[in-house]
């Protein structure tokens, strides 16, 4: 029997008001709710599922929390730590509750939800933290052809079936894409007795963490085929085989390398897409690369009062950073309700060199006690050595050297934004690959 938890009792139909509404109770949402409450805001956290934790519920593997808790935790354990923090605070938690509408209302927002217990709920909030996570790219979004039998799953679906429901999607899977969930599922399939036929990756490098390539594939002798992709699915009712092909440098399949691999399911780990579709009517600006909102150092979007964090902001490879952005967004959302930053100037960061993306994308002039705030970026190409520069009006404000960068591993650094002159030119961040001779500098 599903239960509904809401600490507060409201009269039927009563309009609820709070300072901060947090949409989503995964690692980002829980952190945001905790921080917002600690900053003195009245907080309501909304979850569409029955329990808190988001995707962590099905991530039963370990490796979470090394930075945040200095421990290697499993997903459920990491989630449990945050759930306790939420429960210790006066945070109203509404589960099985689904956001259907969000509109501007005065300075704040009017949100509408449905849930089985109270039907339609309206909440008025001064600020909103969007922590809705991401969805997986499907076979349709990578334009896979052939037949459409049963047996094509995203890695997250397979994870839900195996870890939570206790069912095997197949016993001889082929895995397409080497994202972390795909690698982790290769191991889970194997541990549960399946024989993984191979992992195929169109790129020349795995897209998941090296640690996962070693411990999830190499440990179990599961072959990883780089520069190779699935071009066709076979089987009328159920997947019977796939055709795999090597690709050229432009990722076009080389037809003469086509081979048929017998399998009984195809698992896709081909990318994640931040979920922000409900914000589009608000006219929010999205970053075309991250597919999350454009935010400033307070995780504040282009729509005043809307904050974004976690995988809805940009897809992270470590949960610790997801929580970190949640904390930042929650705190700022709470402070937003007390101060008025609408008029303050936002400076857009211009990114150059081998930067794929940087978050935050803009800087707001503000007085804040934290001198340094986190910045996250990914390089567009691998680099053995690289230099990160923040410049404004020809002055170098920040400089850091990195060794061994790759697109699959997100980087984090802390920058003191107070050094940026709000009246100055557009600040520029630049990432440059360095040659070996720069070594002795």
């Amino acid at each position, binding site marked *: 029997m599903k239960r509904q938890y809401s600490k507060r009792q409201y009269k039927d139909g009563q309009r609820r008001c709070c300072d901060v509404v947090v949409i989503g109770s995964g690692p980002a949402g829980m952190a945001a709710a905790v921080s917002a409450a600690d900053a003195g805001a009245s907080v309501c956290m909304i979850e*569409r599922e029955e329990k808190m934790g988001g995707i962590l519920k099905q991530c039963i593997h370990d490796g979470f929390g090394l930075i945040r808790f200095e421990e290697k935790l499993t997903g459920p354990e990491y989630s449990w730590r945050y759930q306790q923090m939420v429960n210790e605070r006066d945070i109203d938690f509404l589960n*099985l509750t*689904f956001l*259907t509408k969000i509109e501007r209302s005065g300075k704040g927002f009017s949100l*509408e939800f*449905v*849930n*089985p*217990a*109270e*039907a*339609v709920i309206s909440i008025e909030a001064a600020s909103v933290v969007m922590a809705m996570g991401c*969805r*997986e790219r*499907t*076979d*349709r*979004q990578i*334009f896979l*052809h*052939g*037949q*459409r*039998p*049963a*047996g094509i799953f*995203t890695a*997250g*679906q397979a994870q*839900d*079936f*195996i870890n*939570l*429901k*206790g*069912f*095997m*999607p*197949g*016993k001889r899977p082929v895995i397409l894409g080497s994202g972390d969930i795909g690698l982790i599922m290769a191991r889970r399939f194997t541990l*549960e*007795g*399946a*024989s993984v036929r191979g992992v195929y990756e169109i790129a020349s490098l795995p897209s998941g963490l090296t640690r996962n390539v070693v411990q999830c594939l190499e440990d179990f002798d599961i072959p990883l085929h780089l520069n190779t992709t699935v*071009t066709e699915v076979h089987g*009328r*009712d*159920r997947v019977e085989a796939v055709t795999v092909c090597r690709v050229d440098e432009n990722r076009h399949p080389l037809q003469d390398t086509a081979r048929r691999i017998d399998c*009984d*399911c195809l698992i896709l780990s081909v990318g994640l897409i931040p979920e922000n*579709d409900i914000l*589009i009517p608000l006219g929010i600006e999205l970053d075309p690369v991250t597919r999350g909102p454009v935010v400033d150092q307070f995780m504040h979007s282009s729509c005043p009062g809307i904050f974004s964090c976690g995988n809805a902001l940009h897809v992270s490879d470590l949960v610790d950073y997801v929580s970190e952005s949640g904390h930042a967004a929650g705190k700022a959302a709470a402070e937003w309700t007390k101060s008025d930053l609408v008029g303050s100037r936002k400076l857009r960061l211009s990114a150059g060199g081998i930067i794929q993306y940087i978050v935050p994308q803009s800087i707001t002039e503000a007085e804040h006690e934290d001198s340094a705030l986190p910045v996250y970026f990914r390089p567009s190409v691998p680099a053995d050595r690289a230099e990160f520069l923040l410049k404004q009006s020809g002055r170098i404000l920040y400089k850091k050297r990195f060794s061994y960068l790759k697109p699959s591993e997100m980087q984090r650094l802390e920058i003191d934004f107070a050094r940026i002159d709000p009246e100055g030119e557009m600040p520029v961040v630049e990432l440059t690959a360095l040659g070996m001779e720069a070594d002795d500098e």
Partner: protein
Amino acid sequence: MIDKNTRKLKAVRKKLKKAGFPDVTSVESNGAVLLTGNLDSWNDKVIAGYTAAGKGFRGIINDINVRGCDEPEMSMPLIKDELLAGRSLDAVIVGGGVIGCAIARELSRQNISIAVLEKESDLAMQASGRNDGMIHPGFAASPGTKKAVYNIRGNRMYTKLADELDFDLKRPGSILLFRSAWMKLMIPIFKLRCRNNRVDGRYRAMSAAEVKRIEPNVTETQHGGFLLPSAGIVSPYRVTMALAENAVLNGAEIFLNTAVTSLSLTSQQITEVHTNRGTLNCRVLINAAGVWSDKLAEMAGDRFFSIHGRKGMEAILDRSCGPLQNHIMGMPSLLGNKNSHSKGGGLVPCVEGNILLGPTAEEVPEREDYSTDSHTFSELLGQLGLNNELKASQIINYYSGIRAANWEEDFIIEPSQRVSNLIHAAAIQSPGLASAPAIAEDVAAFAVHALKAGGMKVQPRADFNPRRQAIPCLRELGSEQRARLIKRDPAYGEIMCRCEEVSKGEIRDALRSKVPATTVDGVKRRVRAGAGRCHGGFCLPRVIKIMAEELGVPLTDVTKKGGESRILRCETKEGAFDEAAV
């Protein structure tokens, strides 16, 4: 008479010879031309088929063998039982597409017993579930053809039908865009055709600027267009379900996973229908068997046409694209491929708010191979350019369908000339969906006539209820109405499919409707759970759990689309180890 036929046959032979097929043999058979012989390519067979057509025979039976190219047999349901054994029905309709279901609904106005036999695991699994949902204005078909007549009649009937059967119908109108300035010269011809076909609405030509005004995102390459305001859109499978549910409400029965394997006839009358679920008796048999309608005619000894597949691919764009286009738009090439019988496809705003791209058209030897390929997909993407704002990255799904084309390119809607209790509703492709209500009216009348001729007393059903209520679609309701429904039944407040906002209650309703969904795809087609941008990424595990509970089966028995399409293999930890070791 014989002389006349001989003369016509001579003309066919001459044409074939001229077209480069001297070895194709043509003889007269059942009023049609039977083509036999051997050719080296499927394309040659197609050309030969069309070459032989149009010389005054009832149809073309194209039995030419293509070396090295076998036309696959019809796929059969897995089930074998005696469910229908000993049953006796007045009217048996073979085929659960929109035509079969429209006929069933029309016949259910009479006090007769009706059964629809469908070999697939659900209704509308083939052409009726794989088309663009367009209710054509009746412009494209040549005046005087059955297509033209039924299209116009059907288009008019849809307004009332949508009201009675509670399905969405919109009439956005369609714009035939001009590819070049000289197409303006065609305007008088277009208008004449509209008049001849009796097309409804204030059809008219528009300048490029006018088109731009009502479609701001239209391509810059257009040179004006021709507006046909009566063009409508529906969800084709939902229309099929609605017709079937109303028929069931009025006493008809639907048998899924049921294929006709042969027919027994006594003195040119069908007496027994043999199926994989036993043998039944019927008084009148209606052939609405789609791509297999020629095979059913053959079983009755009344073959005078042959069907071939015409495959079309379509793509669906994200719902967020909906506001980017108002009308159906297409830019046909009037100088297109001589052997292409498609109207060229285009962009269709769907009733659900998505935009549909397509279809393509290609003659194929397979009648049930719904695979897609990258070559056709590239061709499809070419049509995206009609709207400047649409991008391939907005595509959330694509699929193909197969039209049941014949060589004469017209519907076959008539009582059999050989078998007294057989009626054909065959070779129905575009504009079949638009024509369905009108076709059903006539076929039902033929059937009633045949029943009466057979000595049966047929009377209108006194308690016929023309109305059917759809499953509520909560995302479309206002807050108050939505709240009222959720309070009555909290299951409507538990959202399962995030992308399409489908509640548990709606999914449950789909599993309990008059023609209940039994597959994951069946649920998706009825209430759109899993039809959105994440493609069931989140809701599939939840949907199959509800299905297992409602259907009373283990999770491992839930299928995507019937047959062997089980979603899950087995439980974890259940001997998985030992098996994998083998």
